[in-house]
Every structure is written in C-alpha cells, then in structure tokens.
C-alpha cells in the first residue's frame, strides 16, 4: 500500500488538490452542484483530449506543437461530413483522418531526422492551412443527437461528458499501455539508444505514438464542435494549456515518465481555477492573467521539486 502511494504520490497530490478546489468552489457558491459539475466537465472536454494527446508524445520523448491545428482540421471535417451523412460514418472518417495526420507527423520526424519541435511547428502551419481549405469560414453543422451525448448526468454528480471522456481515452490508451507498443513508447522516451539496442523499433514506435496523438486530437476536435455546434477552422488556445497540464500532471518533458491520469486531473484543476475566478466575479481579462500566473507558478514548483530530487 505504501509503495502504491509512493509510486503515485504526484497523482494523489493532484487529486487532493482537485478535491480541495472543488470544496473552495462550493464555499464560494453554495449552489454549485450537479449542473456546475456538468458545465465544468463539458468545458474541460477538448482540453482533456488535447492534453492526453500531448502526454503520449511527450512520453515518447517528443512534443507536438500542431495539436490545436489538428483539432481544427478534425472539427471542420466532422462538421462538413455531418451535413451529408450520418453521425457515425462521419465520426469514423474523422478518427481515421486524425490518425493519418498524426502518423504523417511521426513519419516526417522519423524520415527527415529534423527535431520534433521543428517538424510539428511546420506541420502546425500545414494543418492550419488544410483546415482553412476545408472550410474558410465557420460553418457546417452537428447533429442534435451528437450534441446530446455530452449533456446531462448519468448519476447525480457524474456528468455524462466525464464518462464520454474517460471511456474514449481509456479505449485508446488502455490496450496500448498493456501491450508491447506501450512498453516500447516508454522505452524510447527514457533512452532512445538503449531502446534501439534492446531491439525496439524506434521509428515505428514514434510513428505509433504520434498516430495515437492524432486519434486523441481528432476526438478533441469533435468534442469541440459538439460544444459549439459549428466547425471552426481557426486553432484554439490548446497548445499552452495542454503543455502546462502535461507538466503539472507529472509527465517529464524529455520523455519516459508519467501517465495519462495525472495530466487529465491537471486539466480539471486548471479549469476549476477558472470557474472559481469567474464565480468570484473577477474580470475575464484579469482571469487570463491569474490563470497564466498559476500555470507558470505550478510549473515552477514542479521544476523545483524535480530539480531538488535530481540533486539529492
């Protein structure tokens, strides 16, 4: 038991922090209840998918700056497809496109040997351009049924959006985590050369990790149009938010360590801070500043903790 606690100390700490923040919210706004939780979970949905996507590539030792653009491409694709076909084929096609985009990112990194950060920076432009080519102004539509999926609660206190998110991310990540490819992802992230010499196919592992990132980005893009009901070709503010949540969630930049649970809890922490500030009637612009300061402060704290750990 103690070992389990020690191993997951960071995630448990985040969980305690999240619960404390929920308590503070309840104190500020005594009427905060099921509906509040529902809107919180809905607002966190695209951030959670973006963060999960980012976490996988960070674990493999890379970083994907093009996540927000891929989400935009998937969002507009789904919105356009839903005008002419049912929701299910549109979702399947969008997921395939997301996987393909991620795989292209990964393949380009492996083939060109250009650093991840540069390749995905270039692909950020490419995908943003593709999104604009698909739909030059916000448009398309989203079927009512699909928007209905993420509304309401299954049980009191268990929002539907939270369940959708947990099921979707688990469906992608659990089979991977439990199989050889998951092990390879961690191996390549912690030491590429050692992994290569142990017989791990480094190139394919990277492509697979980026493809997984693409799948999750596609889910993020679709959750975005479920929220707004319209396809929006301009990338949203998901890059910094996802990097901050990944770091706050205990995934080490450089790869090899961390999981997906921590980053997703971190997303909710960052979102609930925004809710608290809104409830406290803080000016939305000031909220942006406070949010940024908190993100930076948390990341600084994390850096101090890891740095002390390394030196000790």
């Amino acid at each position: 038991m103690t070992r389990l606690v020690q191993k997951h100390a960071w995630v448990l700490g985040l969980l305690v922090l999240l619960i404390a923040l929920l308590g503070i919210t309840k104190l500020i706004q005594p009427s905060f209840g099921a509906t509040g939780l529902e809107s919180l979970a809905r607002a966190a949905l695209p951030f959670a998918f973006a963060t999960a996507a980012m976490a996988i590539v960070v674990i493999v030792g890379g970083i994907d700056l093009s996540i927000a653009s891929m989400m935009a491409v998937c969002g507009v694709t789904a919105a356009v497809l839903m005008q002419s076909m049912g929701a299910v084929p549109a979702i399947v096609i969008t997921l395939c496109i997301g996987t393909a985009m991620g795989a292209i990112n990964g393949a380009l990194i492996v083939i060109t040997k250009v650093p991840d950060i540069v390749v995905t920076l270039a692909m950020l432009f490419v995908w943003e351009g593709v999104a604009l080519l698909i739909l030059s102004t916000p448009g398309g539509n989203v079927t009512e049924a699909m928007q209905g999926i993420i509304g309401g609660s299954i049980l009191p206190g268990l929002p539907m959006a939270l369940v959708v998110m947990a099921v979707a991310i688990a469906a992608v990540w659990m089979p991977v985590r439990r199989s050889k490819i998951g092990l390879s992802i961690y191996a390549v992230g912690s030491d590429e050369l050692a992994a290569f010499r142990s017989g791990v196919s480094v190139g394919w592992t990277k492509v697979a990790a980026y493809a997984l990132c693409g799948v999750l980005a596609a889910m993020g893009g679709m959750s975005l149009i479920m929220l707004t009901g319209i396809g929006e070709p301009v990338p949203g503010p998901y890059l910094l938010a996802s990097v901050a949540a990944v770091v706050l969630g205990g995934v080490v930049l450089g790869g090899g360590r961390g999981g997906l649970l921590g980053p997703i809890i971190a997303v909710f922490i960052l979102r609930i801070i925004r809710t608290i500030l809104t409830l406290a009637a803080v000016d939305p612009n000031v909220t942006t500043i406070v949010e940024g300061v908190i993100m930076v402060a948390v990341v600084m704290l994390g850096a101090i903790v890891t740095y002390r750990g390394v030196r000790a």
Partner: protein
Amino acid sequence: MSIHPEQTAASDPRLVRFGRYLADNPVIPLIAFLFFLISLLEVMRPGIVLPFLGGREGIISTFWVGNLIKFAIPLAMIAACQVLTMLTAGIDLSAGIVATCSAFVCATLMPLIGPVPAVLIAMAVGVVVGLVNGFGVGVVRVHPLIMTLGTGLIATGCLQVYQRFVIATGTEIPAFLEWLGTGRTFAMPNGLFLFIPFAIFIIWLMRATGFGRLLFALGSNEHAAKLSGVRSWQVFLALYALSGLIASVAGLLYLGMIRAPSLSLANPLMLPSVAAAVIGGTSIFGGRGSFAGAIVGALILRVIDTMLTLLQMPEGARIALFGLIILLVTALYVRITGTR
C-alpha cells in the same frame, strides 16, 4: 562506439568533406538557396526583380529589393531572440507578444508623456518580461518553452487589461519610428540604420565576447560549463532580459512600419522567427548557431511569402505551403550537413 548509420551512408569522402564545410559555413548554401528562390520568382513573374527582362528600365529593381529587406528586418530581429536563446538549448516564445506589448504601450503612452519616455517605458516592458523569463529558466529551472509560453500568456492578459485604461487617450506614433519604419534613403529602407549596427552588435556579442562564449558553453554542455565555474543563472537572466529588449525594439520598429497599433500586431512574426533561426542553421538543441544565417533565413521566408502571394493561392493553401517549405528546407539542411 558503434558506427553511426549516417556516417556509413555518406561514404564518399568528398561528399563528407563538402557536408562538413557546409556545416561550418551554413550561410553559403543558404545564400545560394536565396538566389535560387529569387530567380524562381523572376521566372514566375518576369521583371519583378530584374525590370529589363520585363521591358522596363533598370537592371535591378531597387524598390523590390528595398521592400524585401524592409519586411525582413523585424523578422530577423525577432529571430535574433531565438538564435541567442537557442544557443543555450532554450527558445523565446514570448518574443512576438513582447514586441506587440512594447509597440502598443509606446503608441498609447506617446500622447500622454511624449516620445522619449514612451519608447523607454516600452523597452522597459520587454526587459521586465525577459527578466521574468530569465528568473524562471535560470533560477527555478523551468523548461524555456513552457516558461516563455506562460509569460506570453500573462503578457497578453496584462495587455488586454491595460488596453481598457488607455482606450480614451488615442494612439500616436513617434515621428522617428515612422521615419525608421517607412522612410527610404537611396531606395533602401531606413530601418537598416537601426538594423546594421544591431546585427554587427549581435554577431560581435556571439563571436567575440565572454558572454557569447558562455552561451555556447552552456548550450554544448551545461554541466561541464557549471563545473568550470559558470554561474548559469546569471547568464540566463542576462540572456532572456536581452532577448526581451531585442523583441521590444523589433516591436517598436514594426510599429513604425505598420503604423496601426493593435493587440496582435507582431504576433504573426513569432513562429516565422523560429523558422528563420532554424533555417539559418541554429540548432534547437543548443551549442550551434549563427545570426548571419538567421538573417538569410528571414530573407528566404520573405521571398517565399512573396511567391505564395504572387501565385494568388487561397489563404489556407498559402499557410500550408509555408509550413511545408519550412519543413523541406530544414530537412534538406539536415540531410546535407548531417547535423541536427
């Protein structure tokens, strides 16, 4: 040590030597590539660069060359932030926002307190953001990518709040910034009066000063540099403060050029500045880089921009092609020189 795959691939010794030569002198192939792009542009639209081919007077269109240089200057200045920070394996993603902030602050304070104090305060804004970055990177040891993204976000928020206090005062642009940004001397943009000393200063700083050597040392092997007695946090603090100052000066110049302050004035320069530095042969992993390369990189990006505008492509295709070209150029560069 096992033999690296790249070394076996390029077995021809002459090719290896050529690759090494290019790796040591990244500016030479870049200039060749720049001229290749310009001649491609000339083929696409005869007479744009060499008017006599289009049936007009003059051998070289000084207007076109001047324009190219004029729009490359702010990009090259912000690329200087990236080159300097990348030398230590960092990056400054707040540079674009810092440039916007200083331009906006300068334009809004100008009617209230006059040009010189306004410019000084605008530059102080850049230094303050830079010091925060330097504190985060050097003292607290946050990854530069995250630290500068975060300060950029905070700065954007501050700018939005600040904007509401000054919304009534109106904006005005100092005359000498307008002269620097839009004026021309002998058909060349006046911005060169600022940029040439600036470029000489940066190259001198990187090549001939102790500070420059410290940057290279920290980027090559931070641990070794520390063991040799380098106080890394002081270097980082100075480096990021300098980067913020450069970004704010670039923002002021850009303000004089565009003459319409807005809340996202210089933000579109941000990602191209990284591209310019990378194309110019600066390694994102630290320890290697040149500002001369970044200047050529900025020129290359501007020529590509012109080409895509000439082709009259839809906005989306232009952005996508821009990204593909950045990728292609860096991939070619990595392939030829065999370095990252």
